[in-house]
């Protein structure tokens, strides 16, 4: 049954009335109009819905909204600060690391998570971390290039 759930998303508090077993992705998209997180498969296999939950990349289609209560959630819409893009967003922009760009939000969120835990990943570590994110247009080399460009530019990530 639907009940009121308290969510903290991109630094804002939201009360939503949704069945607790609804995947977080649907609440973000359909209830809160945060449509930057995409539906690609609903099975956790493509990464297009990736958000940060408690600072870590998670597939929002695989997280029940009840499990996201009381943990800070960051979506792609929450990365930009005062009109300035996040360094990872900027790096994707500079590298032209997208074609249809439907996977881009998830790629960026996963990259942010990677660089927060490992500010200077090796190529192999990037590949390992991004393996669960699908880009059907085949933009992988530019995505890797963007992550390498962004590495070290994150707050707290300097050498």
């Amino acid at each position, binding site marked *: 049954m639907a009940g009121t759930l308290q969510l903290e998303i991109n630094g804002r508090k939201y009360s939503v009335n949704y069945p607790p077993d609804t995947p977080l992705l649907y609440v973000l998209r359909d209830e809160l109009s945060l*449509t930057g997180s995409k539906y690609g*498969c609903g099975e956790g296999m493509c990464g297009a819905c990736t958000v940060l939950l408690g600072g870590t990349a998670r597939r929002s289609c695989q997280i029940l909204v009840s499990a996201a209560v009381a943990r800070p959630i960051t979506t792609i819409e929450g*990365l930009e600060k005062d009109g300035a893009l996040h360094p990872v967003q900027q790096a994707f*922009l500079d590298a*032209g690391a997208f*074609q249809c760009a439907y996977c881009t939000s998830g790629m960026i969120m996963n990259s942010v998570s990677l660089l927060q835990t490992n500010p200077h990943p090796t190529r192999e570590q990037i590949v390992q971390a991004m393996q669960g994110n699908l880009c059907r247009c085949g*933009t992988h080399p*530019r995505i890797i290039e963007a992550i390498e460009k962004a590495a070290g530019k994150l707050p707290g990530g300097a050498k």
Partner: protein
Amino acid sequence: MKPGQEWIDLEPERYEFRALPMHQFALARRDFVKLFGAGLAVFAVVKNAAAMQETAPAPRGFHPEELPKEIGAWLHIGEDGKVTGFVGKAEIGQNVRTSLAQTLADELCVPFDSVQMVLGDTALTPFDAGTFGSRSTPTMTPQLRKMAAAARGLLKEKAAQQWNVSAEKLVAANGKITDPANGRSLRYAELAKEELGHQTPPAKDPVKPANEWTIAGQPLPKTDARSFVTGGHRYTTDLCPEGMLYGKVLRPPSLGATLVSYDDSAAKAMKDVVVVRDGDFIGAAAPTVAAVQAALAKVHAQWKGVPQISDKDIFSYLKNSAEPSKDERFRKAKGSVTDGLAAAAHKLETSYTVAYIAHAPLEPRAAVAQWNANKLTVWMGTQRPFAVRDDLADIFHVPEKDVRVIVPDTGSAYGGKHTSDAGLEAARIARATSGRPVKLVWTREEEFTWAYFRPAGVIEIKSGIGADGKLTAWEFHNYHSGMSAIETPYDVANQLIQYHQVPLVLRCGSYRGLAATANHFARETHMDSLAYDAGMDPLQFRLANLSDARMRTVLETGAKAFGWPRQKTDDGQGFGVAIGTEKGSYVATFAEIQVDAKTKAIRVKKLVEVFECGAIVNPDGLRNQVVGAMIQGLGGALFEAIHFENGHITNAHFASYRLPRFRDVPEIEAILLDRKDIPSAGAGETPIMAIAPAICNAYYDATKVRLNSLPLQQS
């Protein structure tokens, strides 16, 4: 002639163009008299395109066979100096929004950032058969240039009249007409106030040659790129107009199953739920996705399946079920293959198979439909908005002018979004929601099951070469997969090349490159086998049989970049090459692979590809397309295949249908040859087609085992 008919003639593997729409609703009436708009509403000056879209002018009808000749149908110059181009193509990730804007800015001589493009909107853009066939660049860039050059010329004339000088002495640049004699200038916006829109271009087209381009030819970044890294861009799946309901279709349990009995009383009793049944179609709408899923779960439907061919039998079916045809379009012959084989020193006969594969666009098929009385608006990720409009008008028995299809920039398509399915479904459900819009997004499983596939095929080749390694005979039969690139680029006097149609098993149709990948896989691996039979290096063997200068240049450039012939440094290492030409562009692909000694698993280490498509409009966008096609090609080459058994797709998920991922991507070098002396060809497709044979040839080099089936790594 139906829009797109010419493409069915040229490329019969566009099976989806011939097929009836997926749903034949009972309310459909096929005897509907088509109405075309009587006149063209043309405005030379509008405030801006965004305002124009909001006010939604009366739809402008265009006769399908003819493009409008009036400048105003293609471009507008606003009072603020902003230029808007109107083209019926769809942006599906191929970057056409940027390349068309570059072209328009270049020819009109205005700053790039003053141009915006309105694409794929049946109410605002000229008729377009669809975004397919690598046609956007070769057809639309000359068209826009012609219109822009004519507009530029008229603006010069206007200024010349005002200043009482000769127009020939005036210069168009940066959105202004300037008189070099005294430096005075007039902005286009001032000159365009008097109507130019109804004017048609002069017969002689003074368009700029490619070596005079300043904005076209540059590696400009994607238009609106920022909105893609912020999550701000709204795809069809993201739209949420006021009052919107979520729609969903109850799919049959197997392909081709028909409805036997049905009870929707429990679903209909649910609050805020609309259930629609029309023939075998059952759909519903509700205020949330969860509610519509719950509603359909309460519909009791019994279906009757039909026995169907399974994947284990597909190739023998395709080979043995060809429909006899005397259609000359399907057959190319010259000389005598019999004589050519008799004269051969070596002969070779081989059979190849290619599996069905899925487009798997990351944004699934989706549509939002809204009825306003008898007028219908559909937002949809489609490559063929006008064809979708025609289907909707037909099916719902409304005039075409009352149907508007709008294509938001779409989460890719690769030839998979040519049909009207999701639009028809959303519109049918929305017919019952009293004007509330309905959004319908296919699930990934629906994508893999109910969309159409690249056709499977069987290809048989019989060939002969002389003692000198020159081809003497070439006989090529393609069963079902199609005719694209079916003709050989090699010199051979005796040829018989034939495409054989086979009744469909799975729903199939266009896919990036169509049958060019299958035909190149067969031809280029067969050529490789012949090279070994002749005792020649595969590169030298190809050059010995090739006189096409552009093809030779591409091949030789690639050989140099790859360092062919290369010495092996590891066991299991292999090198392969494949080449081809299609749709006016040329490709040569070189592969380095490593084959695992025990498992025989292929690891592609490096790909070098040379691509030439005439004058390059945007080298950055082109590089993205070429590299993207190379990586997409890895999937079909190595592991993609649709599995099916008696009407069930058995791998309808990303977990079981393997796509290329980061770890599969090798070192890639893409070399783009810019030929400013040759008109620009399209580039979305050809770069995919030589990947599979290059890898297959490298596998032979590594193992001395010849693989004849795609995908090469059967699961």
